[in-house]
């Protein structure tokens, strides 16, 4: 008796066909792409020992290089700090303009998003060429280039975080009659702040690693030493640099963690 009732009331199981088709299509795309670029896992497995050759050349790291490169590392950090700060400031308006739940005008939001997309497509090489010509081969050009580069990352990650915030406080700001700026300051900002801070610190970290762009505008920094060590095939020095950067990155990560804990 139970079963007959089950059958009569049970809704039709929704067809998962389109979902499976989609999955299949994705799989086919990936598979075809892999074939196209001739990614044969077997070759990788067979030759993977070749990596050891390079790794062996890296060991042991040339610790003295850490001392040699410290001034450059400090330069990199200070340029990254300023570049990230500027990028952070510029990305604030951009991220709000790109968030669908902040600005209801589809036109405005979509235009901002496309603009952000284009901005992110400009390669660092090109940024370097432009700003070196405008501001000279100087740290300033590097900082400006880094800040443009940072806007792309911070704004992109942050506007997605904004779109995921709780709608409740936003409604309550509507209800008290707040204008847009107040609405953002009281409803949006406190909610995205932890994310925003963590993305800024993440970008800071990227900027320290994106040393190449600084080298390109003649601003020196750690990138120059990477190139030099590579140019002389001094992989032990390269490893020293990697470990040095790792230390800096881990420190930034710890700071980020602490701040997030405070804010979350």
């Amino acid at each position, binding site marked *: 008796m139970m079963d007959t009732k089950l059958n009569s009331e049970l809704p039709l199981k929704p067809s998962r066909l389109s*979902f499976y088709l*989609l999955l299949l299509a994705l799989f086919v*795309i*990936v598979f075809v*792409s*892999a074939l*196209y*670029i*001739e*990614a*044969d896992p077997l*070759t*990788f497995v067979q*030759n993977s020992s*070749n*990596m050891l*050759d*390079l*790794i062996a050349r890296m060991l042991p790291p040339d610790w003295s290089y850490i001392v040699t490169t410290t001034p450059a590392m400090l*330069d990199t950090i*200070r*340029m990254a*700090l*300023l570049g990230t700060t500027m990028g952070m400031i510029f990305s604030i308006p951009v991220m709000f303009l790109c968030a669908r739940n902040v600005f209801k005008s589809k036109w405005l939001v979509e235009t901002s998003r*496309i603009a952000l*997309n*284009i901005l*992110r*497509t400009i*390669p*660092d*090489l*090109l940024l370097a*060429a*432009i700003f070196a*010509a*405008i*501001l*000279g081969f*100087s*740290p*300033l050009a590097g900082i400006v280039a880094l800040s443009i580069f940072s806007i792309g990352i911070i704004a*992109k*990650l942050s506007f*997605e975080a904004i779109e995921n915030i709780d709608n409740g406080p936003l409604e309550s700001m509507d209800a008290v009659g707040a204008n847009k700026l107040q609405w953002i300051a009281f409803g949006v900002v406190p909610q995205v702040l932890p*994310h925003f801070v963590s993305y800024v610190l*993440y970008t800071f970290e990227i900027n320290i*690693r994106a040393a*190449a762009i600084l080298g390109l505008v003649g601003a020196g920094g750690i990138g120059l030493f*990477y190139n030099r060590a*590579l140019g002389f095939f001094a992989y032990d020095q*390269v490893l020293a640099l*990697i470990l040095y*950067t*790792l230390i800096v*990155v*881990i420190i930034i*990560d710890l700071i980020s*963690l602490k701040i997030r804990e405070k804010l*979350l």
Partner: protein
Amino acid sequence: MKSTDSLKRERLIRRAKYSLLFIILAALYTWAFASLEFRGLLDTAWPVTKNIINGFISPDLSYIYNPQGEDLIRGLLETLAIAIVGVVLSVILAVPIGLWAAKNLSKYSLISHGGKGTLSFFRTLPDIILALLFIKVVGPGAYAGMLALGIGAIGMLGKLYAEEVEAMDPGPVESIVSVGGNKLEQLAFGVIPQVLPGFISATLYRFEINMRSAATLGVIGAGGIGTPLIFAIQGRSWDRVGIILIGIVVVVLIVDLISSALRKRIV
């Protein structure tokens, strides 16, 4: 009154904390700014900017298609293929590491710190080193490019994944714990369904970055659009740079459209 006293004390403590923070930041920025000098706009500013803008206004259309190959279309297609396989590889590797690094999934913070450290390590590996490692294994070409991008993305994707997991609602996981589910079941029933949208958007973001990772691909001789772009910039052929960048933007926008249409159906 008891409450006003403690209120005052709280306010004082807050003020002291903020002042300290302010002093630290001020010192930091003073140090950073000390190295800067502004020399004004240089003579070269205008000619270069003008030429670059000109290049973008009149892009090198002849580069779009070339019957011999080595044109924009084929470069983009190959870059697309590299980016797709690369992102799949990094997802496969970054999901477990990301889950490992998420603080709220492990009982002891030491465990998640291990995951975070691993991710930091992957983030510090320079692209060029990855490129060298993989070129030694599989030779120059798209395959090595895919590997370098795929492994290079683990650090970033894992970090974004871990943060997504850390921000999720603990309730559903708790309910799986309460029915006696093991770790894997907690993940499958409590975590993954919640974080899936976040994972997907982080993955798409990374895919997009892969599309733009000209430098890595150029180093490796991957045959995508990376090498020509780098040469065009180094050779200051701005019209060529223009057409390549337009091509990349168009592909990224199309992929964006398709993926957001798909996402509406899956998520």
